[in-house]
């Protein structure tokens, strides 16, 4: 019997399908932009995302890339709960691991770009997913903004656990990333600017 692919998520630029033990992320055509631009962007971004996923895979747990087509990334399906839904029962160890994961990514200049608890999956282990906005950037500012997005996500979605969780994450980040001090310092400046924004 054929297994139908099931739409599991729809973002601004892509659709996510679950098919057997795989996830297919497909960047869809946008009719508002001309073909030349549309095709260029979908190709470039698919390539960059797959590349960053592979880089990240050497450092932390992310879905393994199985194949990359023109506008499609085929990756392994990660079974588990979205951290957003289970944070109230999550152990201290897992929260600490969030900080360690971010530190590891940053130590190799990988900026995730959308660090929210919706993009973390807790199964047998903790996974980071959705590198659609990720970039490689050796910049303290970019790393501080990355952390800021995470902090905001915790604050707005998990108000009750925010303080404690952020303290644990910060500590783990500093322990695992030797330039972490500078990033956290910059984070204070980012916040002081009051020009923070949610990223989607």
């Amino acid at each position: 019997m054929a297994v139908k692919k099931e739409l599991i998520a729809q973002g601004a630029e892509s659709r996510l399908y679950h098919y057997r033990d795989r996830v297919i992320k497909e960047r869809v055509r946008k009719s508002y932009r001309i073909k030349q631009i549309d095709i260029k962007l979908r190709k470039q971004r698919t390539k960059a995302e797959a590349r960053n996923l592979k880089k990240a895979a050497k450092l932390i747990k992310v879905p393994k890339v199985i194949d990359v087509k023109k506008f499609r990334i085929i990756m392994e399906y990660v079974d588990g709960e979205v951290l957003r839904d289970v944070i109230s029962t999550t152990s201290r160890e897992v929260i600490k691991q969030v900080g360690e994961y971010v530190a590891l990514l940053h130590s190799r200049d990988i900026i995730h770009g959308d660090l929210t608890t919706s993009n973390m999956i807790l199964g047998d282990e903790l996974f980071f997913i959705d590198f659609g906005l990720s970039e490689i950037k050796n910049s303290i500012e970019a790393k501080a903004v990355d952390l800021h997005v995470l902090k905001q996500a915790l604050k707005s979605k998990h108000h009750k656990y925010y303080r404690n969780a952020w303290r644990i994450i910060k500590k783990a980040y500093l322990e695992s990333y030797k330039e972490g001090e500078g990033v956290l310092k910059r984070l204070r400046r980012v916040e002081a600017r009051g020009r923070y924004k949610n990223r989607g």
Partner: protein
Amino acid sequence: MIVLGIESTAHTFGVGVITEDEILSNAKESYRPEKGGIHPRKASDFLASRAGSVIRKALTTAGAGMEDVDLVAFSRSPGMGHSLRVGSVAAKTLAYEFNKPLIGVNHCIAHVEIGRRVTGMNDPVVLYTSGANTQVIAFQGGRYRVFGETIDMGIGNFIDSFARYAGIPFPGGPRIEELAKKGKYVELPYVVKGMDVSFSGILTNLRQKLKKHELEDLCYSLQETVFAMMVEVSERALAHCQKKELLITGGVAANKRLREMCRLMCKERGAGFKAPPMDLCVDNGVMIAELGLKMHKAGVKGEVNIDQGERTDEVEIKWR
């Protein structure tokens, strides 16, 4: 309640008179440089020279005198210091002379609020595209958050700068839109960083291409590229905030291609799309009156000192 609003943040001195139910008048005069960009002092001299006549015209059209006005509102932020001062002095003079309450408002939020009033959209994502500003704004957690914005120049200034380099007289937008209809695509950089857009690199690139390509082709490619960038960021905000409506405003909202792209994007998402009439998209006094009215009714006192750099998300929103 009759509210008189004064807009004076850049090159327009605008005065609007409104009530809760009606827009009674919308008078304005805009400074047009003979050549080059806007010189702050020349612009403010112009605004000061027109302030009296624009106020008079707005009141006459509204069929009201200053004694009928219940509240004076003015744009206190953000904008060019020289220009802000002209509006602030005019508003304060009126308020003190006629003993009326005075309220200072944020220009960007005024664009959003007049858009909500005239389109009837309750909770839209707003694409605000003008000379100096390019922002994608949405209401969340009690504030208007800026989800994406330009990290260098505003879209309007970008278009006008290109027009100047290409020898197209001010304002360049309409002419570029016309030329673009006959153009073909030439590759340009596409610069979206996270949720933000950047135009300065594209401007440099276009300048270098001016001698090597047909102007029509550059105009076409410029529009297709930068508008796609703004529409992409708008779509991200819609998806992220799970909102169902997009509202476009600001002077660049006059561009038909940009509107078409917004409409297409919204159609694909099943979202609504609207724009206020053009005389309320560009800088105007009506929007200042509208925001003043909403703040006043919500019991917000409002600052009366000017602030060139106030950000959209610094303003506490008590009327929603």
